[in-house]
């Protein structure tokens, strides 16, 4: 709850330094403008969701935040420093978990990769790996290869590897897009709990509008061709959120209607 308090404090003072700041960011790839003049600040501990029609540049925005792309003009800052390359404090959960995991390493080995990169001594790794696998609900699966796990388990494993980076910021690119509805809801709640426990800042890209409102403190809708901000909604739903009661609240339904109307308008 300390995070919520910190966030509220930031809101009240109104000028806390953003952890991630886009300042007039434009990105051109292959002669096409993907993102145009995007300015956006994400506060420490904030859970920001980005939605939009396919091809609106939401994944691109996430890759800019990750340092995987450099803006053509404008700046992306992390903790006040320009993002010139990816950094370990920023973890990325990719949608295609099957491609983002090392098939030749077991679950434990995949988590270990991040610990190795962080320079943790070999002797300290097993205990930390076990702890992380337990955190994401995969105790007892340490010896399994990714191919022996279900999609939901593989995505949990990728999240465990990202947590092993001890990230200040977690970037999630449609992480549950390929999962079935039940698994997805379970993982939504788990991610909320993990984020609340770690205090990490999250940028969460999704095409599922309900998911965005359910998870986020703030939801941004992008307009396509080129990508730019079309709508910004503050989500003042109480936490912890609940799959049934949160989704029944009038405020949830109001935001949902507003967001659906926006997306419908962009698609015309």
């Amino acid at each position, binding site marked *: 709850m300390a995070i919520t308090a910190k966030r509220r404090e930031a809101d009240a003072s109104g000028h806390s330094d953003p952890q991630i700041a886009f300042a007039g960011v434009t990105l051109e790839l292959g002669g096409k403008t993907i993102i145009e003049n995007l300015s956006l600040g994400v506060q420490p501990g904030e859970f920001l969701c980005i939605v939009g029609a396919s091809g609106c540049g939401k994944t691109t925005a996430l890759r800019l935040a990750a340092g995987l792309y450099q803006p053509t003009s404008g700046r992306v800052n992390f903790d006040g420093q320009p993002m010139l*390359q*990816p*950094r370990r404090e*920023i973890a990325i959960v990719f949608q295609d978990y099957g491609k983002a995991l*090392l098939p*030749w390493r077991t679950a434990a080995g995949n988590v270990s990769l991040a610990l190795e990169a962080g320079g943790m001594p070999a002797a300290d790794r097993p205990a930390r790996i076990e702890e992380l696998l337990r955190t994401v609900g995969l105790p007892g699966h340490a010896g399994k290869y990714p191919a022996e796990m279900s999609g939901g388990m593989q995505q949990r494993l990728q999240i465990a590897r990202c947590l092993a980076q001890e990230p200040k910021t977690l970037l999630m690119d449609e992480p549950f897009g390929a999962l079935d509805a039940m698994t997805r809801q379970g993982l939504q709640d788990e991610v909320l709990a993990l984020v609340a426990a770690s205090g990490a800042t999250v940028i969460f890209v999704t095409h599922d509008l309900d998911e965005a409102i359910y998870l986020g403190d703030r939801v941004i809708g992008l307009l396509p061709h080129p990508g730019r901000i079309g709508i910004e909604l503050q989500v003042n739903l109480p936490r912890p959120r609940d799959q049934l009661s949160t989704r029944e609240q009038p405020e949830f339904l109001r935001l949902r209607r507003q967001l659906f109307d926006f997306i419908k308008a962009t698609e015309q």
Partner: protein
Amino acid sequence: MSRKATIWLWRAASFAVAASFIALWQLIANLKLVSPVFLPGPDRAWASLMRGFSNGDLWSKLAGTLEHMVYGWLVASIAGIAIGAIIGSSKLMRTYVAPSLEFLRPLPVSAIIPVAIAMLGLTQAMALFVIAFGAIWPIMLATIHGFAAVEPRLYEVARSLQMSRLAVIFKIALPSASPDILAGMRLSVTVALILSVVCEILAGLDGLGHWVLLSARAFRSADLFAGVILLGITGYVTSVAMSMAEHRLLAWQAAQR
């Protein structure tokens, strides 16, 4: 029928086929359809094989051939993986170097032998060069392919973990390319055996190739066949050993199927 029983039945059948080939060979030899000067029966070939082992002649020849094969193959593997990794991990290199490789690759290695003899003489160094040159191609091309086919997403994971270049090669690229590399190494070991024999025959280097040549020239057909049989066994054993090593090293692949 259980799976296990089926496997044993197949093994028994293939054994029966091999046994009937040997029986046919014995029959042809006994009937003297081919002169015994040129074709010994399996009994005589076997006796010669045993004699060669008991007096140590064949052991030293076998050791010579294995030495040529293994050294050439190791040099080819190390050089092939290193060069293949450099070419495969850079698109620029692939574009510039690949055409030259396509010119060199189909060149018959036998055409290189006179060049190698002219430059290095009838020496072990010549044999090492020729064997390594011939055996490098399957390994190098497989490595290039393996390195070029690494999932780009994994490189992004490596970037976000700020892994060093060396760590990326050893923890991401090499393991990812290992199925290709091992397949290339399995092909190469056969090439290395063939070229060992060729070099021994051409340069008179100590080994089974030389043994076979001398036996043929002296019309000692039983010895000739003993050498050929031993070469066959060598090829078979190395290929089985490679398969077993592959199976062990690539256990993770079994999970994907």
